[in-house]
């Protein structure tokens, strides 16, 4: 059992929670994740650690409400408890001075890119950040990203804020005019694929952080397997950060769709159950 000590609604569908989890916070490193199970009936979902404070013993998670579990999690409030909060899991990113690092965050991927930018900035890297979302109401943490970046670019697909277009077009421009030592991209799979295709052309080392479906998150089931180069890797123990140029994105895109029908059914079932409870309360 862990306690939610702070909740922030970043956008209507994206929420932030600060969790009281001293053991997880003590060993957490940028790039790692936690497995969250809301209650006894809950599934085990992986969420990247967006920030942590080892001294206060807190871990920050950010999630977009896309399925039953994340919707239900989003309904919890400060003071509420979460049944399981396991971590920190996965491997951390290599923390050293690479030189000039470009951090690309797309959508809810801005959350996991932040601790990486923060950790690398501390080690003396020059950080250029590019964050983007579909529209302005899905953007968050511009201020935080600003605080750990030497330069920050913001894009929206629809032009409702910042530059209209995709993060890749800004990245292309930065590549044209500056020397880059490392690109780190976190966001929707399609975005990470496009970033990797672009940086491959210029042979720029690129890391991506994957977020496939998981069950245990400790290497026990192989649900999160992904082809990297010619090898089969388990994201939970071998990743979640991999060489962006070696990941088989198309395979992973298909694997992400494995339970679409069930996910839809779970949401419908949940909304119906809540509606029924609502009727009871009204009576």
């Amino acid at each position, binding site marked *: 059992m862990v306690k939610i000590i702070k909740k922030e609604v970043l956008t209507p569908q994206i929420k932030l929670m600060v969790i009281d989890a001293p053991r997880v916070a003590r060993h957490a490193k940028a790039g790692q994740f936690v497995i969250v199970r809301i209650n006894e009936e809950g599934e085990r979902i992986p969420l990247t650690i967006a920030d942590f404070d080892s001294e206060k013993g807190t871990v920050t998670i950010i999630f977009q409400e896309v399925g039953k579990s994340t919707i239900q999690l989003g309904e919890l409030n400060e003071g509420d408890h979460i049944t399981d909060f396991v971590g*920190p899991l996965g491997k951390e990113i290599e923390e050293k001075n690479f030189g000039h690092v470009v951090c690309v965050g797309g959508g809810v991927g801005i959350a996991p890119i932040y601790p990486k930018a923060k950790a690398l900035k501390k080690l003396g890297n020059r950080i250029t950040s590019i964050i983007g979302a579909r529209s302005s109401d899905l953007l968050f943490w511009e201020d935080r990203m600003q605080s750990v970046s030497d330069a920050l670019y913001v894009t929206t697909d629809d032009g409702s804020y910042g530059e209209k277009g995709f993060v890749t077009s800004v990245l292309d421009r930065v590549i044209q005019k500056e020397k880059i030592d490392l690109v780190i991209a976190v966001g929707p799979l399609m975005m990470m694929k496009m970033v990797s295709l672009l940086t491959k052309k210029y042979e720029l080392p690129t890391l991506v952080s994957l977020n496939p479906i998981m*069950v245990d998150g400790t290497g*026990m089931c*192989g649900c999160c397997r992904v082809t990297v180069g010619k090898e089969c890797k388990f994201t939970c123990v071998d990743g979640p950060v991999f060489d962006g140029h070696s990941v088989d994105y198309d395979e992973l895109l298909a694997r992400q769709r494995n339970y679409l029908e069930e996910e839809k059914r*779970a949401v419908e079932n949940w909304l119906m159950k809540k509606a029924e409870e609502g009727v009871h309360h009204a009576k």
Partner: protein
Amino acid sequence: MPNNRLNGRPKMPQRTVQERIRDFDEVPLGLEKWAAIEEAKRCLQCKKPSCMKGCPVEIDIPGFIGLLAQGKIDEAVMKIKEKNSLPAICGRVCPQEEQCESLCVLGKKGQPIAVGYLERFLADYEREQGIDLPKMPTQNGKKVAIIGSGPAGLTCAGDCAKMGHKVTIFEALHSAGGVLIYGIPEFRLPKAIVAQEVDYVKSLGVELELSVVVGKTLTFDDLLQDGFEAFFIGTGAGLPHFMNLPGENLNGIYSANEFLTRSNLMKAFRFPEYDTPTKVGRRVSVIGGGNVAMDSARTALRLGAEEVCLVYRRTKKEMPARIEEIERAEEEGINCIILTNPVRFVGNENKWVTGIECIQMELGEPDESGRRRPIPVPGSEFVIPADTVVVAIGQGPNPLLLETLPELKLNKRGYIEADEVTGATSIPGVYAGGDIVTGAATVISAMGAGKKAARAIDDYLKNKS
């Protein structure tokens, strides 16, 4: 008295196929009291019992059977529990036919004593009556950390507690029991029984910390700083092997670990009441011939599959599964496709599996395991259509904890090198046992290892101070 005996040995009453294949309730029903006592009377009470040599936890088999024959049920239970803290589990999942029962003198001419059925009867009887606690010594204040709450860890924890040590079990998952919870299905080992056995171990004063991944949440150094003086690693063989064949990451292909974990631990068979889904198509193929393969196939059937087959590269004779389990699987309509080995997985444009391309095999000379080596028959490829595939070809050691302990010596296969008698590893004070030492084996051998390690830990702690 109903006549359901075979050469004197009782048959295990079990639910009919029609009744059992659409739910997850337990299949064998257990012996009735009169049948158990009758069977106990059949024991010859050998002066030099050979059955005990087959028991990895050294249960006094003629001792408990003799008490049962006299109707002294409570005493019979205590006799088992002197050596085995988890009899309800062993009575169900031990391969007695290869252990105690295989050595029973009666088996030479007729049928051996049904030791497993009797053990199960006694454990179940006790559970229904309420369990008495053994006399506990006063705690000596020495802290022992047990990593992993599977059969090895639970046994080691229970025994260390009985020796007066202060024991904490650290479990990575949200439920205790290890493979007993995530691996073995409800219909073979009801989870209420596992929970009760875990509660028993807790009632001995053992603390249980769930959702703690040692090596990640807590490091070994953290545990040392917390005052733990001895350690037992029983983390199991939890890393599923895949075949490394083309198409293996298509949707619809599961490791047995994932397939069983979804159903057993996460209760996917009760989706959407429980949040974790699972996918079972009309036709399911399970690759492998061990108990895990049988469990997967029978789970698939209960999840609604119309046709379930097992694909195995040797013949039924070489299958490592218990004969009883193979029989039950076949009774339930599971088809064994033998002398057949997958060469690649076939999928559709949406990257969903549609079948397994296989090649026929024939048996050649025996290999290092003594089983005849299967050899492919050139040109015999054919496709088995399948909507769901479960790969049940074995597991390897989970690297999570081992990676964080570089000084811990491993063997060539990546398992922990531990002394066979004591479980001692290359690090003083650190013991290991179960599948993380031997590779995938039985519940009872893991318990045996936990037991031996507890004794060694006790010696170590006594000599240390």
